[in-house]
């Protein structure tokens, strides 16, 4: 298992500083929650780590420098992410979605042939995310929560060692949140997980560590209790008691 190590990360759009010098360490096996008000740079930080936006500084996953690497190569290094709006292939079935996610290492010969049966890792992932029954259903017809789980499942079969989840429980029912939280717990046993989340109740229940971002910088870091006690955090989240 590898950890994530970010040094002096900066992202600038047309003069606007979205991320301004972030240092962040996520140790192997951690479940790190990133919180912060809108515009704090949470998603931009994940975008920079996954190669979607240009950034300066250094992002290391294990021994590998990620900045300057192409998106698909970063993914192949074991960095996987989800999106706020679940990005699954709606015209494909659950099985096809997972099979594609599992297939980056396949050779040309395997690619031009049909899939026979269900690959072992896909079967495991199906059980982990609880979609065994929806195997042949088009992903577009899944319930909102199921789509998010499918996306996480895709990260599992992709063999991602670092999972970056962008608001995985937004819009979910209470039961779905619980299930998602347990899922995160399950997958974090042999993976490093970073979660962007607004839901404080969810955070309190499932976060191991928390980083608070504000205006493109790290405001506070520590366990849930430490962060909650930090006066700077309370100041930023003016009046919002939960923080």
């Amino acid at each position: 298992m590898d950890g994530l190590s970010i040094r002096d990360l900066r992202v600038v759009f047309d003069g606007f500083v979205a991320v301004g010098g972030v240092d962040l360490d996520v140790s192997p096996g951690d479940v790190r929650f990133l919180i912060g008000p809108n515009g704090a740079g949470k998603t931009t930080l994940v975008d920079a780590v996954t190669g979607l936006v240009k950034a300066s500084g250094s992002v290391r996953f294990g021994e590998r420098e990620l900045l300057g690497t192409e998106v698909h190569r970063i993914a192949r290094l074991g960095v996987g992410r989800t999106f706020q709006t679940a990005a699954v292939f709606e015209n494909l079935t659950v099985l096809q979605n997972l099979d594609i996610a599992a297939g980056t290492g396949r050779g040309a010969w395997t690619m031009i042939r049909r899939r026979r049966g269900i690959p072992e890792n896909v079967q495991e992932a199906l059980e982990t995310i609880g979609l065994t029954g929806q195997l042949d259903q088009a992903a577009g017809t899944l319930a909102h929560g199921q789509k998010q789980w499918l996306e996480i499942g895709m990260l599992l079969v992709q063999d991602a060692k670092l999972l970056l989840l962008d608001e995985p429980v937004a819009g979910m029912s209470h039961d779905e949140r619980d299930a998602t939280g347990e899922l995160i717990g399950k997958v974090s046993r042999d993976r490093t997980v970073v979660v962007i989340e607004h839901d404080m109740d969810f955070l309190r229940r499932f976060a191991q560590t928390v980083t608070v971002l504000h205006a493109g910088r790290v405001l506070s870091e520590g366990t849930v209790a430490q962060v909650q006690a930090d006066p700077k955090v309370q100041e930023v989240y003016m009046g919002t008691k939960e923080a």
Partner: protein
Amino acid sequence: MKWRAAAGFALGAVVLFGVAPAVLSDFRLSLLAKYLCFALVAVGIGLAWGRGGLLTLGQGVFFGLGGYAMAMHLKLADAGEGNLPDFMELYGQLDALPWWWRPFANPVFALAATVLLPMLVALALGTLIFRRRVRGAYFAILSQALAAAMVILLIGQQGTTGGTNGLTDIEGFFGYDLDDPVNQRMVYFIIAACLLGLLALVRQLMHSRYGELLVAVRDSEERVRFLGYNPATVKLVAYVAAAGMAGLAGALFVPAVGIISPALIGIVPSIEFVIGVAIGGRATLLGPVLGAVAVAYAKTTLSERFPGAWIYLQGALFVIVIAVLPGGLASLARLLRRQPHGRLEHP
């Protein structure tokens, strides 16, 4: 489903090899041969556009490359060893064959070139374009500009390409006299066999893991990238395959019709290839084939009776089918049968 596919192929074989030659006159059969060439192009467009989302408005270029490669060989064979093709003596004022014509005297090289040359050009252009994430409408317009540039290039080199005339008056096909109706029939059978074979291949490709990945790229290129694939490569395969099919079609068109000219390559013919695909159903296997044949047939018969009406009809087809029925007639059939299994097929 499996028996249906098998039955479909068997039925297609019976129609193409049994019924059509029995009921059609030599002339109409040779027209059908021409339509089937267009259908070959359509299968490729169906793959690239319907499944891969690559609206290529320049398939005429690849059709032309295949056609010219074949025609160059046949012209050289007609002329006999050591002689220049007739048009070159007339317009070229050349003493010797240009160096780039010479390899085409070899039948093996020429046959290979009909398919490989278009694929190579597609590979080079596709690499440049997809690598820089040029896509969607940008790709469509660039592919169209390619067709325009290719025509200008061919026409400008009249002495060695035949200019606007193209390469005409092709008499023989690997030793067989193309004037003979029996040999024309043989050419038809070869084309029909190629179409069936190619359909089987493309069906395999569409149902393969690659086929699924291609749809995924079409629907969300970025998501595929985050899974660790390079979408440029995925698209390149479909584009190159479609180019190869168009090249094969062009090569077969030459013995069937006896001419290849810039008139078959430019912007207008290239976009006409697309309309059949759209009408038949862009993302299905058979839709493009039936659409292309239907459009070509309608063009022949309608223009025999009402020349102006064909243009109105063609324009109306573009507007109505694409605006109202983007899945083509294939989706209409499915709507009627109320079978909601067209997941891969709705873009």
